[in-house]
């Protein structure tokens, strides 16, 4: 069964303090790994898709990277508005299946 584990559960940083969030996955064949941002009371907001080891995507202060076993979401010089829960999900490995399997998320707080 596909599994996604995120760490840490919660992370508190000072504004400008760079760090990384981890997403470890166990799938029989990766068909896509997704990063979402979720604000309190809102739905997940799409950030990135990664398909193969070595791939990287960037958006503003965020960069997502992928290896064969894990993905990292690097946040550079974060601002308070980057505070949110960041969710990692994989597309179910069964061919033709379309469901996303989510990790439990990392709750990121950026203090001014």
């Amino acid at each position, binding site marked *: 069964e596909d599994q996604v584990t995120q760490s840490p559960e919660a992370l508190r940083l000072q504004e400008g303090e760079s760090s990384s969030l981890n997403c470890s996955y166990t799938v029989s064949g990766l068909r*896509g790994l*997704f990063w*979402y941002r979720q604000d309190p*009371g*809102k*739905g*997940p*907001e*799409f950030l990135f*898709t990664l398909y193969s080891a070595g791939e990287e995507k960037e958006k503003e202060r965020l960069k997502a990277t992928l290896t064969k076993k894990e993905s990292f979401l690097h946040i550079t010089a974060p601002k308070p508005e980057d505070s949110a829960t960041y*969710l990692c*999900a994989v597309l179910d490995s069964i061919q033709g*299946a*379309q*469901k*996303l*399997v*989510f*990790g*439990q*998320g990392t709750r990121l707080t950026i203090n001014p």
Partner: protein
Amino acid sequence: EPEVTQTPSHQVTQMGQEVILRCVPISNHLYFYWYRQILGQKVEFLVSFYNNEISEKSEIFDDQFSVERPDGSNFTLKIRSTKLEDSAMYFCATRGQYNQPQHFGDGTRLSIL
């Protein structure tokens, strides 16, 4: 930017009652999904829907649940006889072509009393 719209934002219902949650997909999206998130837990898949039929469903999606797209625009999730454990945030997601990401609405908070 196009959005997935869900109504109502909050639904409070007595146990045993039927509820219908509604979703307006992004225009020209063809694949539709329902997920739920119990407070403090992971987002979990319920069902996927394509070409007017269910393409995949989880163990959670039992006979009490049903989905349909009655008028070609709204996509609905019905829970026939609600239980206390159905209390959760329910998210609708939609996507366009096969390899495009799923886009989520802001959810319906369902509270069963």
